[in-house]
């Protein structure tokens, strides 16, 4: 009945045009609302020295943490101290005359740290802890290091200077943190607990409480 009368009225002259106009309008509005800004990956960065990750991590297959030594014991991964670079390159005659290595030696002469540009830069109010992630995925779950770092940094072995390939937005973090990880051995299971409840205490594995993203202060400071 209702449909009949509505259709009936639609059948009347002028009506169809009007209806179509309004429908389009509404759909357009909805579309706009849905396409709200998503953070995109950054573009290539000009570095003082074009550090070839592809050679070191790719060709040589050097462990990320050999150079980024702080990643496993500090919030910040840091970049290797100059001495680290020299440690090897003093003894690699073959490449000594390469321009990049020359630059490196210049810095070393000046005893001056290389002012590399930050590629993966989080807002200052975000607390991201490299140690946590390395400890869990690399040391506890024994996954390959390049995969572990790659979760956020992408396939560095394929780049010269590092590039930002993930949006590193809050939603992006959560998208990973909401996953359940059945493969994780007991004690390290990461099912991010919601507020624990009397009716379902089973939901709370021991020593698992309150780590991100269920706790704003875990990541925000």
């Amino acid at each position, binding site marked *: 009945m209702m449909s009949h009368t509505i259709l009936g009225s639609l059948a009347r002259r002028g009506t169809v045009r009007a209806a179509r106009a309004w429908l389009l309008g509404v759909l357009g509005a909805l579309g706009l609302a849905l396409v709200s800004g998503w953070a995109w990956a950054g573009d290539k960065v*000009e570095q003082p020295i074009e550090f070839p990750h592809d050679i070191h991590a790719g060709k040589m297959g050097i462990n990320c943490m050999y150079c980024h030594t702080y990643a496993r014991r500090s919030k910040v991964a840091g970049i290797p101290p100059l001495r680290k670079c020299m440690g090897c390159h003093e003894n690699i005659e073959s490449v000594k005359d390469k321009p990049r290595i020359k630059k490196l030696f210049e810095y070393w002469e000046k005893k001056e740290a290389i002012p590399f*540009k930050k590629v993966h830069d989080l*807002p200052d109010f975000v607390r991201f802890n490299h140690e946590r992630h390395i400890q869990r995925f690399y040391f506890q779950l024994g996954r390959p290091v390049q995969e572990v770092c790659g979760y956020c940094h992408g396939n560095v072995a394929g780049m010269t200077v590092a590039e930002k390939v993930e949006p590193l937005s809050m939603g992006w973090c959560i998208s990973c943190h909401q996953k359940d990880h059945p493969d994780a051995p007991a004690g390290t299971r990461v099912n991010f607990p919601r507020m624990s409840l009397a009716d379902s205490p089973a939901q709370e594995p021991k020593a698992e409480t309150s780590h991100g993203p269920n706790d704003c202060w875990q990541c925000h400071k």
Partner: protein
Amino acid sequence: MKNLQRRDFLRVLGWGGASASVAACGFTSVDSGVETVKSYVEPEDFNVPGVGIYYASTCTQCEGLCGVVGRVRDGRILKLEGNVASTINNGKLCGLGQASVQHHYNPDRLRAPLLRKDGELKPITWAEAMPILLDRTAATRDGRFAFLTGPVSGHFKVLAGNTTEALGSRQHLVYDPLSTRINRVAAEQVLGSGAPRLLLEQAQVIVSFGADFLDTWVSPVHFAGQYARFRRATEDKPRGTLVQIEPRMTLTGANADRWIAIRPGTEGVLALGIAHALLAARPSAAGAVPPALVTAATAFDRSRVLTDTGVSAEAFDRLVKLLQDRSPAVVLSGPSAEGHVHGYSNAQAILALNWVLGSVGKTVVAPVKSPFPQIAAESGDTAALRQFADGLAAGRFDTVFIHDVNPVYSAPAFLKIPELLPKAGFKVVFAQYRDETANLADLVLPVDSSLEDWGTHVAPYQGENLELTLQQPLMERLYPDGTRSVGDVLLEVLKRQRPQEYKGFADYYAYLRAALVANRAAFAPIDGDDEYFWTEALSRGVLHVKAGAEAHGAEHAPARLPALELDFAGATTPAGDPYPFTLAPAVRALRDGRHANLPWLQETPDSLTTIVWDSWAEVHPATAKRLGIVDGDILEIASASGSLKVQAYVFPGLHPDVIGLPLGQGHESMGRYANGIGVNPFRILDPVFDRRTGELAMYATRVRVSKTGTRTNIVSDEGWKSGNLKTQAGRKLVAVLPADKAKLSEEV
């Protein structure tokens, strides 16, 4: 050099971090390639970016000399905590200590030496400054040199002394505007030690005559720790009871179970009155006390004491009863009892009570004797300043070094220091700020902050064992070519004067290291070679001095109370005095004013009045009523030697005849946080001195009070905004439980 390398570890890492964290929260760039990230050139595996490391050092904010550990991250010292290894503060630290990082990072620090050229202080480089300094000192005629410092100890004391000697002078004057010398001398005489150990936590009763041991007296953090244990009850010991007797309420008074307002200067009378009452009740105690005292005490019977002191009979009797019932007790004598013409007599009478109560040897024991008297603490006194002033007046000084004190600010006006100082030939001031004294100097040498400098310290008051605390840089110099260590400078002077003795030492650091390593046997053993000993000592921050049997001082205490020289003349003031009130200067976190430029301390509300960023005159409600004074009235406080204008604060914690005035404010030249804030009570102190020790009698100044008619809003944290609310308005915020109801012993 080792030294330089250590500083290298402490180098600030990729500075700019802070500016980023300042911009935080809101518009921070997250775009790639905007911020830079740096690393060390030479790594140190214990030095990890993003992880805080703790270095041990010593807090030199007051004479307590607590051990501290500083949190260093990315080469920046962020925060100080107490050092658990130190038995002085046992891991705790007061607000004053916390604030010393602001001395270090203070925006008003001098960053280059200043030399007086045609009347003006002009910045110069150290390269220029040092030769001038050395030549001028070398040119000093024999003995015409004075070195005015604040309280000193450790190897700096030695160095300062040697410098003075090297210049043929004996005038190493140690000056402390808030000196406790009267107390020390009296204690030395009555208890056999200038700084006896006080076992407060073992006492059941503490009777303190104005000793503010929780906030400012001798070693506050140490005593606060003891106080906590003293308050706690155990099976064998009930909760201790604290009675504070003073004309103006100190923080300790505010925490007393019973606070007794006493007429200023009559503390000794009360003490003898108590002694009299106790002896009368328990003649047996007389054994320990000389008949002289007993007879002296008889003169002070109850009625006289009450009339003299203005203490209520009820309070007096309760106190006597308390002392009879509970034991052991401790009786302390503090500045407000000692700062009088007869202060020494007061102190004696008060301390003598410990004999009457049989506390000596129980709660008042002799301290561990130091095997190194030459580095033992030398607490200053005000007599030193008078000596200095006389020297200046007599034109006896070609060259003057002033370090760690600000006489032009803290000297009473009658000493005329600002006028006399120019009489000295060449005035060198080692200063962190361009303060009042620095302004009158010929050469101002900017010194390292206590967090950049090396040093050794021996606290005048020691815990259960004798400690030598080390001071080491917690980060590289903020201004590497701007500031230097005083030690280094003195060493240069000595090298010039006595090259043979000192050429071995590259710098102050080397000097200290050598001195300690050489004497390592004297300290609690640390195995390993010298290198290891040294690093270990640094990482601990505290060296326990071995106390040999002969060094332990228990038997050095006198067996019985020696005879006292009591003289209470002037204890009570004549009627019709044109200056009807006694001025009670209040010592606060700013101490003698040296900490006035620390924003944290300025912004932290005063514990009792909660006033910030200002001075104030405390007036008793009754007095205020009589004179029609209300909060915020601008008063003129006038003494015979000067006057000042300051806002009134009606404050109940006073004897009605007393005006309280906090010290430390009223700087003309120190820094942006101190200048022009409040008034400086030192200026109006009267030339009254203790008869025996010749110390300035801080609490003997008489003043008159008058309204100027203007009024201001008191800026405080308490509810002045709400009709000066002083109570909890019926809410249950702080609940109080009578001690007899509490079951504290069950709580352990």
